[in-house]
């Protein structure tokens, strides 16, 4: 008890209290094993506060937004727009008008590729991404390459998954128009040195897109301080609902971007001959939006702010270091990425020599432990590491060291089982 207490003193988080906010953590898997959820890099769990705000919308305020004179419509509009303001504040965006709701990171990046890329990039222009990107930040640029003829170049990764910045400075030439990079790798967990990338890009006159899908949930993000041009993230990885995400972009870029979709709410006037676009952000939000989703996203930002992003980061560093240390003590385990928890988020990719990750994940599941196995939508990393797949455990604010103990115990059983 004494050790437990002193241990929890080093955090400023009351994990037990936090866990009570997440009903799914009381679930049992197969025959009565309590759920140990270590798949947070894929999606995070949802606190009652977020679920309640979504439910309350449907029970009390549901209406289509904009242009309604009736009470419900005005309430729904206000809830939707106040969510936008919450999200702008959470990321310290200069104005909430620059915050475009999308269905998630994938749509956000595709929107930039379509609406900004097709407008501003021509044959021979260079777009630089990295070898550690998620497929969502690779495929849209490959499509653009094949259609427009841009040059697509990859900053390579070093053996620990960090970026080869020497190589990068050669790649980011003056014909480079955009550098699109993840703030944190979902496959390995390493944190990008964003300021170094931004410096190189600025010197070359290139814009910077930051894929914040993995960083937004775990690291405090200050868009103005980062000095970037585009920022993308998904609510479902940061305690929010599925189907909603953010594209933030500087107003000067949004002004020159053509809308990707046409329809209701994004126009000012429509005649049979012609249409004129509405103001930003409406111009990029055609059709009835995911109203409940936006409200849930705002509620998730509130929850994270209340807990405190620094507290979350400290907790995750501590638990990640604890996990790395324990995993290293298991003989056949190989950990990918940097071993210093300061250089990574709460994501640990690993393999057990001679046992396929699929089998590892399967046996862990029978103990109630949820990890992800596979290529994590980052096949270029798998090629670079020369492995077909990895097992990945990823943590969040509600995970405990006791859960890490369960993981390592179970891994020992896996090794016994498959020999």
């Amino acid at each position, binding site marked *: 008890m004494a050790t437990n207490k002193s241990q929890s003193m080093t955090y400023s988080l009351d994990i037990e209290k936090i866990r009570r906010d997440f009903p799914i953590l009381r679930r049992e898997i*197969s*025959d009565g*094993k309590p759920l140990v959820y270590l798949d947070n890099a894929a999606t995070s769990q949802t606190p009652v506060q977020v679920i309640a705000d979504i439910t309350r919308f449907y029970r009390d305020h549901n209406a289509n937004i904009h242009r309604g004179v009736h009470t419900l419509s005005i309430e729904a509009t206000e809830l939707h727009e106040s969510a936008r303001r919450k999200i702008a504040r959470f990321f310290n965006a200069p104005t909430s008008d620059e915050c475009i709701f999308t269905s998630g990171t994938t749509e956000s990046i595709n929107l930039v590729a379509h609406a900004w890329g097709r407008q501003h990039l021509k044959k021979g222009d260079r777009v630089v991404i990295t070898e550690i990107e998620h497929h969502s930040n690779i495929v849209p640029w490959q499509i653009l390459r094949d259609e427009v003829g841009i040059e697509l170049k990859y900053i390579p990764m070093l053996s620990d998954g960090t970026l080869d910045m020497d190589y990068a400075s050669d790649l980011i030439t003056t014909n480079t128009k955009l550098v699109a990079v993840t703030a944190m790798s979902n496959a390995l967990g390493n944190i990008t040195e964003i300021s170094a990338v931004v410096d190189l890009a600025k010197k070359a006159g290139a814009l910077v897109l930051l894929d914040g899908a993995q960083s937004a949930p775990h690291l405090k993000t200050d868009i103005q301080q980062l000095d970037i041009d585009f920022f993308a993230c998904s609510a479902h990885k940061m305690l929010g609902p599925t189907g909603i995400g953010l594209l933030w972009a500087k107003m000067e870029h949004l002004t020159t971007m053509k809308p990707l979709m046409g329809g209701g709410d994004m126009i000012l006037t429509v005649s049979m001959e012609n249409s004129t676009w509405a103001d930003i952000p409406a111009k990029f939000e055609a059709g009835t939006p995911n109203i409940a989703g936006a409200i849930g996203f705002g509620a998730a930002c509130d929850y994270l702010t209340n807990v405190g992003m620094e507290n979350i980061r400290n907790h995750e560093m501590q638990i990640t270091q604890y996990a790395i240390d324990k995993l290293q003590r298991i003989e056949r385990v190989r950990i990918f990425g940097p071993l210093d928890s300061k250089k990574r988020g709460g994501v640990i990719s690993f393999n057990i020599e001679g046992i*396929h*990750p*699929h*089998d590892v994940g*399967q*046996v862990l599941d*029978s*103990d109630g432990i949820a990890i992800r*196995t*596979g*290529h994590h939508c980052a*096949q270029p990393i*798998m090629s670079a590491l020369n*492995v*077909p*797949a990895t097992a990945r455990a990823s943590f969040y604010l509600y995970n405990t060291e006791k859960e890490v103990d369960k993981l390592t115990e*179970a891994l020992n*059983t896996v090794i016994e*089982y*498959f*020999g």
Partner: protein
Amino acid sequence: MSGTLLDELYKEIILDHYRQPRNKGELVNSTCSANGANPLCGDEIQLQVTLVDNVIEQIAFTGAGCSISQAASSMMTEFVQGRPISEALVGVLSFQEMMTSGVPSEVDGFDDIDALMGVAKFPARVKCASLSWKTLEQALDGNSTATTE
């Protein structure tokens, strides 16, 4: 670790094939071959077949993958070796059906293979178990690649 359900997946005979795969290696004089991949989980198989008068005289595989895909490959090669193409294709269909239904097949010679019927309860693993059969079908069809997705 809980037994029951997991033991239905990893039956002793499966682990045996996984640890000592039959027909693993390369053939010198194959008449047809195919590569299979399950990119989402990283399973890979290279399959070589020597056909003589429409009979599978010899078959061998290399590759890497999880215990289920490895064991399934081993069992598949053991089953089809020495059988005419027509019987091998019946095997392909019967295996597919077993993966959908979860009911053991009636096919003669499926004894070991029937142990894989538990896989049907694990939808994420059905592709692992099916890869070698799909690749066999491609090889016999004269195609050279197969993917399961």
